[in-house]
């Protein structure tokens, strides 16, 4: 399991909670070639990112290989208040995963 790959900022703005996430991940497409060996670098990408608030999934992202390296994700949802916890977790195509819980400020 990967460690410390997720950075989360969650802030209340008006009546919405704005979540910004950065994940550290290579996001290999499987189309790129290794310059030295000429062999294709196998695909390695995040397939799914799940964002939970109070046990409810507020956003589930299904990603393909065309999401940039070290992906950024931002979204907004209502019904949250300061001090609530949100949980972000991801799974990639090799079965690796990580999750992080953050407090809304």
């Amino acid at each position, binding site marked *: 399991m990967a460690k410390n790959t997720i950075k989360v900022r969650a802030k209340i703005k008006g009546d919405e909670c704005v979540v910004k996430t950065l994940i550290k991940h290579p996001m290999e497409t499987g*189309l790129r070639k290794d310059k030295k060996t000429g062999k294709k670098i196998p695909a390695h990408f995040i397939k799914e990112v799940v964002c939970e608030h109070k046990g*409810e999934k*507020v956003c589930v992202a299904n990603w393909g290989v065309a999401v*940039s390296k070290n992906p950024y994700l931002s979204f907004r949802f209502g019904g949250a208040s300061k001090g609530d916890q949100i949980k972000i977790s991801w799974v990639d195509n090799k*079965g690796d995963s990580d999750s992080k819980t953050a407090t809304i400020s």
Partner: protein
Amino acid sequence: MNLARRDVLKLSITGAALATLPIGTLFPARPVQAAYPDNAFQAKEVAKALQDLFGTTDTSAGAVKIKAPDIAENGAVVPVTVSTGMDGVESITILVEKNPSPLVAHFELGPRTAGYVSTRIKMGETSPVIAVVKANGKLHTASKTVKVTIGGCGG
């Protein structure tokens, strides 16, 4: 679609397939959760990807806003923001027409989530970026052409 997916997974017994399998099978009743749309992500055309994802290609131009640069210097990192003022948004999908596989990302949104996502995507060449918003069971779409000077899918 579920049956087809199961067959595909059975056939391809790779570590990745096995690892992602329990997510779909253990919690079939989760409200926002759909199985990972493998077929749609492998589709080579926009229409095929939409067909696999939504079961229809019937879309109408709608109140969907795409914020993306007119010219992207680096195709490997193109910031894209999709937003809509519509209520009842169920999902937001981002496609790049001329990428090897057009489907880039598909976001399933909960009932409390606003019609807004922002992310960064790769683009192989100059191409229209297409956003599809599913709201109240209907597909609304918008597109914006982004010029790419250096592709993001090479070495």
